[in-house]
């Protein structure tokens, strides 16, 4: 195939050529960045929580009266007995928050020395009793669970620093990268050390905002009973297959033991599936929006190429007839238009690659997006070239069917 005559013809159609190339360039830039955003968001959504999500649900229990520490602790104990006695319930525990909660939870700085001022890292702190690990279904990969006698009450604004803690593997690896964290200790905003007695495989953080990304999956459990006057979260594990029944009977049983409590009808009772859904709302939304934009954009670009090529074919009817009359085959004409589109597409993607990285760089500085891997751009380039060839195929086929007799007709 001769490229020279194609280039000569394109020089006669500068505006159309530039427009198609520009459209391909812009589409490449948007599609690559959108796909990259989708990929990042989906990766975030897929992060494990460590919780046995199929069987666990959460009750946000707020007290109707202002209790002191002893009253609150006694009420929590009583509620836990009530919950554990329910036929559909396997286990129940209490905490001040839970993984993926996003609306509650606290974080502590961690240091390796008592007098260190710059923190080594940061982790979510869950208060949990000896049932916490078991109820959530966390997988203990080293050490032991809490003993009942280690659990203390923590009242309003009462900082209790326990002697022992169970931490996530991610936190263990951050603090002691050689895998020897068990039995070692650290300091968590206190002058007394906390000793690691257990390590669980995964325990996601409670809050998932952008600021917490560097501390992903870094969490610890402190053996505390949340006796704050505000309220407490009950985390309940249903017997396999009885989640719905357990979720129905649990609030009723709690209200029956003590009416002076609030379980908000809107979001006071959530299955873990609902918790996960809420936690990743905006990530899912962005992925859907970017996906829609990509699809519509590719469709519009494809249709635009079809439209403009059809116009060119119509315009060059006579020239095509002349070429056919001079001996060009169907195939020659078809190849002519396919090659022409390929040349324009190549020009377009060349500009597009620059635009893609430009847009990516801008998104990185403004929105901490992350640098795009080259594979994405190559994938986008392939996609757009295939799209261009596909779009041009129908008009090119029509061109190839122009009979040689056209050469003799007036334009």
């Amino acid at each position, binding site marked *: 195939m001769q490229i020279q005559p194609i280039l000569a013809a394109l020089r006669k159609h500068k505006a159309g050529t530039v427009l198609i190339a520009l459209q391909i360039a812009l589409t490449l830039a948007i599609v690559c960045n959108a796909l990259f955003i989708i990929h990042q968001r989906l990766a975030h959504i897929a992060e494990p929580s460590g919780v046995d999500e199929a069987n666990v649900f959460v009750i946000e229990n707020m007290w109707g009266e202002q209790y002191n520490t002893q009253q609150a602790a006694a009420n929590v104990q009583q509620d836990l007995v009530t919950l554990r006695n329910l036929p559909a319930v396997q286990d129940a525990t209490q905490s001040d928050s839970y993984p993926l909660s996003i609306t509650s939870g606290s974080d502590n700085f961690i240091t390796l020395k008592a007098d260190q001022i710059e923190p080594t890292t940061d982790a979510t702190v869950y208060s949990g009793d000896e049932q916490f690990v078991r109820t959530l279904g966390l997988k203990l990969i080293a050490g032991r669970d809490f003993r009942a006698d280690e659990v203390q009450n923590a009242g309003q604004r009462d900082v209790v620093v326990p002697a022992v803690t169970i931490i996530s593997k991610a936190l263990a690896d951050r603090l002691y990268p050689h895998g020897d964290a068990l039995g070692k200790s650290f300091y968590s905003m206190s002058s007394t050390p906390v000793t690691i007695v257990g390590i669980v495989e995964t325990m996601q953080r409670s809050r998932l905002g952008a600021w917490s990304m560097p501390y992903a999956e870094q969490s610890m459990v402190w053996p505390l009973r949340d006796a704050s006057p505000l309220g407490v979260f009950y985390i309940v594990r249903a017997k396999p297959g009885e989640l719905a029944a357990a979720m129905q009977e649990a609030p009723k049983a709690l209200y029956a033991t003590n009416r002076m409590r609030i379980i908000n009808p809107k979001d006071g009772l959530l299955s873990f599936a609902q918790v996960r859904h809420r936690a990743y709302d*905006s990530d899912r939304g962005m992925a859907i929006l970017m996906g829609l934009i990509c699809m519509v954009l590719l469709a519009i670009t494809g249709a635009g190429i079809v439209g403009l090529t059809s116009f060119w074919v119509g315009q060059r009817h006579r020239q095509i007839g002349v070429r056919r009359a001079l001996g060009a085959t169907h195939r020659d004409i078809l190849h002519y238009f396919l090659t022409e589109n390929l040349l324009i597409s190549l020009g377009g993607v060349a500009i597009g690659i620059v635009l893609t990285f430009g847009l990516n760089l801008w998104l990185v500085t403004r929105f901490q997006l992350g640098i795009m891997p080259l594979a994405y751009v190559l994938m986008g380039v392939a996609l757009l070239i295939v799209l261009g060839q596909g779009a041009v195929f129908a008009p090119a086929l029509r061109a190839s069917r122009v009979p040689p007799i056209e050469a003799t007709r007036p334009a």
Partner: protein
Amino acid sequence: MFAYYFQLGLRSLKRNPALTALMVMAIGFGVAASMITYSVFRAVSGDPIPEKSSQLFVPQIDSWGPQQNEDGKPPGALNYVDAMALQRAHQSSRMTLIYSLMLSALPHDGNSVPSQVMGYAVTGDFFPMFDVPFLYGSAWSNADDDNRASDVVISDSFNQRMFGGANSVGREITLSGHDYRIVGVTRHWNPSPRFYGVWGESGFGDPPDFFLLLNRALDLKLDNIGRSSCRGHLTFKSWDEWLQSNCVWLMPWVQLNTSADVARYRQFLESYAADQQRAGRFGWAPNVALDNVPQWLEKQHVIPQESRVSLVVALCFLVICLVNTIGLLLAKFMRRAAEIGVRRALGATRHEIYSQYLVEAGSVGLAGGVVGLALTAAGMSGVGLLFEPEIARLAHLNMSLVGLTMAVAVMATVVAAVYPAWRAAQVQPAWQLKSN
């Protein structure tokens, strides 16, 4: 002439329905995507209190020091000690301190279960500072603040739930086991974003149910359910020790009417921090800030990242749709070169050809606007899929958005048609007639 060109335009659009449909759809999609994302952006980026946003300021004092503060900036709230000191100094015409509360309310019919109510502990200046509108009664006085009175102002919707909407001023209400006297009922008031409490809040939640007298809330040890942030070793074992800690949680606002007041207040903050350094409480040089409402909202990243990114992507999408339209209009116009040649030969000026084709493009834009409007209306119901419910509900299709959609569609298409119409106007009549 305009009406005639418009008719010609419509007729020509009917001639290539596929090409026309393609242009109309491209513009429709481009405009709809931009308008949907813009409506969300507009909702989250508005000035919540336009008449006063440059007179309301958040004073900030670095009580953590350069080693522990965030990026060298003072924290976004005050600890109790600094907050009380600023309050006592009376250096601004008005000042309030705010923290969030969640309490339980027991309806008076006895056997029902309590419900959860959300509100703020504030000082009396809060109401005149933020122009809170009252339905019944009024704010409490500064004397009530000093007397630590059990006063509460409730919202109209809470008043509706508890008292059936009657004038409840002077009545008692029990919240989490404590009795308060209602001094005022506000009209519906929920500035968006809720600028006064955005430290650690999204700023787009349900309106608060009540405002409690701050000193009374502190006396009752009603805890802050909003964000609190601490540094160093935590040693407090009780509420009173917590108040003396370095934990920041009280949101301060001051009203400063003139730029001289602002300068004076800034100076006061500097000298306060210098005093603390001299007294040995701060081991670092004064580091203070004073932000008005727009500056504060910017600093707190109130506009969700999703909203900005999606707006940028949607606008890029619109640009691509327009590039597409330029190409298609060019094809459409140039296909009629012969017709243009005849018209030019019969005496039409370049200018007339030019305006005829711009009007034709305008009619494409109009059709695109109608499609875009339909898609925008459909997309509005899908906004809930893309943003959190509390933000999604802010986006809605009103008259100004309808007008904007149509205007953007027509303007964008006419701009896209500038080059194709110019090319059409350049057609040489002699050349066209000869080749025919």
